[in-house]
């Protein structure tokens, strides 16, 4: 009986035997190849783990500024009162202790693609044969007038999990019953397309249990959103008229924020005053992608579909929310899936081989209430040189599903989180 572990070891031995002759850049490192991974989220941590699983002889260094990673997925469940904050935090212990990944707790500030080096905030310089960036997103400060980093302390985005999420949670808890929560949702593309709508669902769950006279207003810079029909039906069923959604065409686009007074102004001049104000601003690839020279004019990273190598700088691979990977959405699931494909491509390239044919999946669960979940799924491959959804597959939960179906999808959402957290960081949820 072949176990996976023996198989990996055997294949790894084959992989490292050949390449020393044809890949002179590797010879300077004393290993099968030196890979630096920047960013320890769903994309980067997964890539680091799967690089070592496929070829334990690789020298893999993960650069991540935070010692503990808090996930955006399920941060809405924390806001909704379904989970505690530490349940969405994950350490890097298993990546270092079990898989032998080198962890460097620091910021990556610069990349020299010609010299194949990464410069850290400490001044340390790391050499690489292959670099994998999983930088996530940065906010476009100033894209909405008045919304900058200091405004985000008063009107949080909470679109990177951590302190921002805790600020929003504290504001919701100190709000009086009967208050108004406003969420401003950006135009496409942005991290986690269903996220704003799951967030207001979870906050409605919190309000229903604690502050039932409160209201929720979503001001949107779009006319349509992910799983819209399912969300709107769920909102009516679960929360009556607590949640109101205002589309772009109905003057939903926020153009100015007054964080001190918790006021927003929309395109046609209407001013809304909130008791708690959550601005999800327009976004771009994380800063290190710019520093590495891999972003396009729109601020995102074009990649080669088969490998997720940058189209602009060789030997730099980029995965996750930072990339242009449509029709794949910017989700943690996709980042994990892309991290595995990029890891396999890097292992193959360092062994002087062609990359394996890629295959990706996305599944996004959204939890509307403790017993009410919905999902969207997609299977993706490369067709005619582009990432494409496999025909006649994927899609959203049925509109006419019964309550047992919704209950089981909420249960599977939790199962999904437990599994992907362990698959990514090697830890339980």
């Amino acid at each position, binding site marked *: *009986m*072949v*176990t*996976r572990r*023996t*198989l990996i070891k*055997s*294949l790894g031995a*084959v992989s490292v035997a050949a390449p020393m002759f044809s890949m002179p850049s590797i010879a300077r490192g004393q290993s099968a190849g030196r890979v630096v991974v920047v960013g320890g989220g769903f994309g980067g941590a997964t890539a680091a783990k*799967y690089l070592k699983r*496929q070829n334990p002889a690789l020298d893999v260094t993960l650069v991540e500024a935070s010692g503990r990673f808090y996930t955006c997925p399920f941060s809405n469940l924390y806001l909704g009162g379904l989970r505690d904050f530490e349940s969405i935090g994950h350490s890097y212990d298993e990546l270092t202790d079990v898989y032998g990944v080198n962890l460097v707790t620091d910021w990556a500030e610069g990349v020299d693609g010609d010299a194949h080096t990464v410069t850290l905030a400490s001044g340390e310089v790391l050499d690489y044969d292959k670099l994998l960036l999983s930088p996530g997103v940065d906010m476009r400060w100033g894209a909405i007038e008045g919304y900058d980093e200091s405004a985000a302390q008063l009107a949080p985005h909470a679109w990177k999990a951590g302190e921002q999420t805790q600020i929003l949670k504290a504001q919701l808890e100190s709000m009086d019953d009967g208050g108004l929560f406003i969420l401003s949702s950006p135009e496409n593309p942005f991290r986690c397309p269903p996220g704003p709508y799951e967030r207001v669902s979870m906050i409605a769950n919190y309000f229903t249990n604690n502050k039932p006279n409160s209201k929720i207003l979503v001001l949107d810079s779009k006319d349509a959103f992910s799983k819209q029909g399912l969300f709107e039906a769920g909102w009516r069923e679960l929360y009556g008229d607590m949640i109101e959604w205002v589309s772009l065409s109905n003057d939903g686009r926020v153009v100015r924020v007054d964080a001190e007074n918790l006021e927003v102004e929309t395109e046609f001049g209407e001013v809304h005053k909130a008791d708690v104000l959550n601005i999800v601003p327009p976004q771009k690839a994380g800063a290190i992608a710019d520093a590495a020279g891999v972003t396009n004019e729109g601020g995102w990273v074009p990649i080669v579909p088969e490998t997720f190598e940058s189209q602009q700088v060789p030997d730099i691979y980029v995965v996750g929310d930072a990339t242009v990977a449509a029709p794949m959405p910017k989700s943690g*699931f996709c980042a*994990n*899936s892309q991290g*595995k*494909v990029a890891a*396999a491509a890097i292992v*193959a390239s360092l062994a002087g081989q062609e990359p*394996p*044919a*890629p*295959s*990706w*999946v996305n*599944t996004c669960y959204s939890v509307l209430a403790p017993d009410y979940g919905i*999902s969207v*799924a*997609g*299977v993706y491959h490369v067709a005619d040189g582009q990432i494409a959804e*496999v025909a*006649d*597959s*994927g*899609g959203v*939960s049925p509109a006419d599903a019964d309550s*047992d*179906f919704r209950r*089981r*999808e909420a*249960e*599977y959402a*939790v*199962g*999904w*989180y*437990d*599994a*992907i957290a*362990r*698959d990514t960081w*090697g830890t*339980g*949820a």
Partner: protein
Amino acid sequence: MGIMKPIAGTLAAGTILAASLAGAVQAQETDASVLAGTCANCHGTDGVSPGSIPSIAGQPYAVLIAQLQAFKAGEVPGATIMTRIASGYTDEELEAIARYFSEIEQ
């Protein structure tokens, strides 16, 4: 080279004739691991689930392929998401995935 036999035995008869034996074995295995890699996001690394979603590691091949084909055909009562996912794969890809997980010791 003890790994060759079980893997080679899983290949479609024609596939292996086209390339050298070692090359064919490695390429096929890598493809299956890429296909199967996406399953881990819900079913756990190597198909060992830590939560409410079923583990699939070490299940008999016949059980796994029958279940995957039934999902694809929309014939699993009460199925939630797997019909939508299984319909994204060819029969050959589903067979490779089923074989991959059947060969993992749980």
